[in-house]
């Protein structure tokens, strides 16, 4: 076990964990942040995605000691039901969710993608989101939601 300090959603947290623990389990069980989800533990589905220093990473294969002192943002850090982030609002407006289990990966990866690519084409979106799995088959609405999110983010900027 080791004391590790984490910067998550703008707040610092001290946790006492096995430093090899993947970030996912620390976020979920120690900080009780339910946004990041366990889907595969193999970096194959994207359900566990979080933002670390501006990049989307798979928290299920990221040892917690490697992200100490880095800025970590989870789904909770983007917005709340009372005040959703533009990407979250776009997904709500497109009703782009079925079971919702993959949504953490969709929203986090879309957010980072749009930060870098404010004017994506539909093809860009499909290529970038391709590694993020959804089993309910919500893909057409997710694609539309990301197009809409790009508009919302531009309107805000």
């Amino acid at each position: 076990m080791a004391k590790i300090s984490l910067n998550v959603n703008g707040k610092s947290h001290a946790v006492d964990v096995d430093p090899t623990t993947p970030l996912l389990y620390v976020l979920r069980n120690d900080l009780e942040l339910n946004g990041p989800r366990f889907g595969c533990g193999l970096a194959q589905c994207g359900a566990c995605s979080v933002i670390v220093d501006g990049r989307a990473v798979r928290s299920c294969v990221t040892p917690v000691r490697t992200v100490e002192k880095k800025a970590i943002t989870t789904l909770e850090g983007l917005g709340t039901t009372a005040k959703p982030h533009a990407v979250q609002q776009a997904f709500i407006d497109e009703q782009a969710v079925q079971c919702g289990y993959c949504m953490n990966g969709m929203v986090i990866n879309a957010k980072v993608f749009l930060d870098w690519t404010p004017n994506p084409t539909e093809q860009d979106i499909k290529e970038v989101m391709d590694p993020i799995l959804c089993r309910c088959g919500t893909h057409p609405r997710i694609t539309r939601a990301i197009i809409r999110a790009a508009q919302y983010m531009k309107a805000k900027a």
Partner: protein
Amino acid sequence: MDKRNQKSEKKQLSRRELLQNTGALLVGFNLLSELPLTAQQQEIPGIGAVPDGMSSYPYANPDYLDPTVLDSWLSVQADGMVTIGTGKVDIGTGIETAIGQIAADELDVPFERVRVIMGDTHRTVDQGRTAGSQSLARGGPQLRQAAAAGRLELLKLASARLGAPVERLVVTDGVVSVIGEASKKVTYGELIGGKQFNVKITATGIQGAMVVAPEVKAKNYKDYKVVGKPIRRVDLPAKLTGEFKYTSDVRVPGMLHGRVVRPRNVITGTPTVDESSISKIAGIVKVVREGSFVGVVAKTEWAAIQAAKALKVTWPEPVHKMPATQEAVADYLRKTKSARDATGINKGDVDAAIASASKKFEAEYHWPFQMHGMMGPCCAVADVRGDKATVWTGAQGPFTTRDRVASMLKVPKRNVVVNFVESSGSYGRLTADDTSEDAVVLSRAVGKPVRVQWMREDEHVWGPKGPQQLQTARAAVNAEGKLIAWDFQDHGLPWTESQGTPQLAERQIGVKSTLLGNPNGANGGGEHYEIENHRVMGRTIPWPQDDPSPIRTSALRSPGEPPRVFGSESFMDEVAAGVGVDAIEFRLRHLKNKRIIEAVQAAAQKAGWVSRPSPAPASDGPIAKGRGVAVAMRINTIIVAISEVEVEKATGHVSVKKVTLAHDCGLIVNPDGLRGQLDGNIMHGVSRTLLEEFRFDPSGAKSFDWASHPVIRFMQVPEVDVVLLNRPEIPPSGGAEPSVVVIPASIANAVHDAIGVRIRQVPLTPQRVLSAMQAKAATRA
């Protein structure tokens, strides 16, 4: 008072009855401590096995919330909020919202003032499992009637309060007022807020077949205000911000983490376990062994995961080996005597008609084992304390889980409380609730609450599979190009795991499954066509599971029908092509059902279908294009799909470019929700047709993660065009799964249209398509 009022029997309930019924959505009685054992307790076998009109009513005992008590269904708080309790559960399809719409409509309250409680065994009525797209078709009318009974009681209370007969009352947004005297009004909250109705209603039959409050007349569909509207789903905002709590987010005080250890192969006998192999991992609480069950409990989830992976377990060589190939299973299906036959249709003399016909067709179609592939592997928390247990699960049948856990622990049903917490979308997978049983075994062993989530490999390898199926089809046509005989035989395996049979952990600790499993039916074999000599049969081939095997089986989205419709609608296409007639025109020649004809025409029009026989004229260039249609009816829902594909000639790679779908499920409760479900079915269908097969050989499972068993991704997603045919005068049939059944055949037919080659086996992998193209070229040469 009108006649309806007189019919509904009203009586005061004794405190004892109140305690038993706890109609208690609102009142927090503790069922476990309050309810005495009674002689009335009796077992209910699995769903489907119970005939209607049982001589003694199974719910008349304290193991169940009594459906004849109005308070079991709904309550009204002082602030006017209405709570509806339903035994149905949301598995990601949005029925929480749809049920809220039904209740709001019937009660005349704003949608926002309705809250829905789902699936908790101690505070909702058992309405049967959530399966078969039956939540709105069967659960919906039950809830509407209960709401109508509630509305009537509220009107009676208002009548007494306002001094006006019920006929002169009108309800708007939960406020009852007297027609013509606007000042005379009272709210639902003021009438009953926080109190129980204490009123009996009628309820006969059980689960999905239950008939609730037939004495009360519900609204005419023409008066629906909330139903039919694209109301936004209530669960979405929280699901997008991390505020929503899924099963995997349940944390209870003192909870430990468990993981199970299972091989990739059939489990035989008792394994040897070397506990020293994990001695270096900190935080291990216990290695739990019982029969062939092996699990690890640890203080942290990561310790449990590491320990389960590192634990050295030597499994005995399986006695009953997994089959060598899919072909070996097909051979078994062909040669083994059916245990039970289901008849879709049987008229005329098929054999004689085929024998005497001059133009005949014959084909065989193959469908592999496929998996549900939940994004989040199954998960549950169990807290076993002495002879009582509490379970948190996303099971599609919480009452089934309760009954199985009670049986495992050898305690009365009422000692087990199952709380439903929504899980990752399950598509039938959680009719088998494995992790609840795993968690119970582990919690019993350590005396503390234990959370178990399966790892990805557990879910891929051990999640029960949609069964392999094989169809044999024969047909004959007359000189006018009309079918005179149709003989379609499905050979499939029963669901060994999804009908309340012992699950994996139970079997590992020694409980034998004595049931055959539920047959997966006969529907989807072309029974909706009008043919003089017509036979559609579903043969259930036994699937003995002497030892737990990764090819255990269960219901997978529209169970049995994607394979059957793949066979029957491919065959229909073969016959149409064989007589040189356009695929749609040929189908229309054999259709009389007006709804089906209209759906076919709607799809054809939307897709811009041009009449011509298949295949399309050969094209130059590297890509061949084709279109294909498939038509089916599943439990009164009509679906027609037209797929447009491109086949890469050099590689055999198929891509689906567009799917047009016409859908008629009677009354549409929520058109936007329905469209979302249809997108999902199309993607699911494309994925299963092009990519999916659970692979194995005698050494074990070969599909164990998303790399070895891929599913559809964004780049493979076709354009989707949906036509909804709304028929408000027809009660709603299902929308969550029927449309998947037409996708496979529409794709295979489009591939045939493109390249002139018929693929009779799913998945349509590039290798399979290329081989078929090469074989055809070789025949020509």
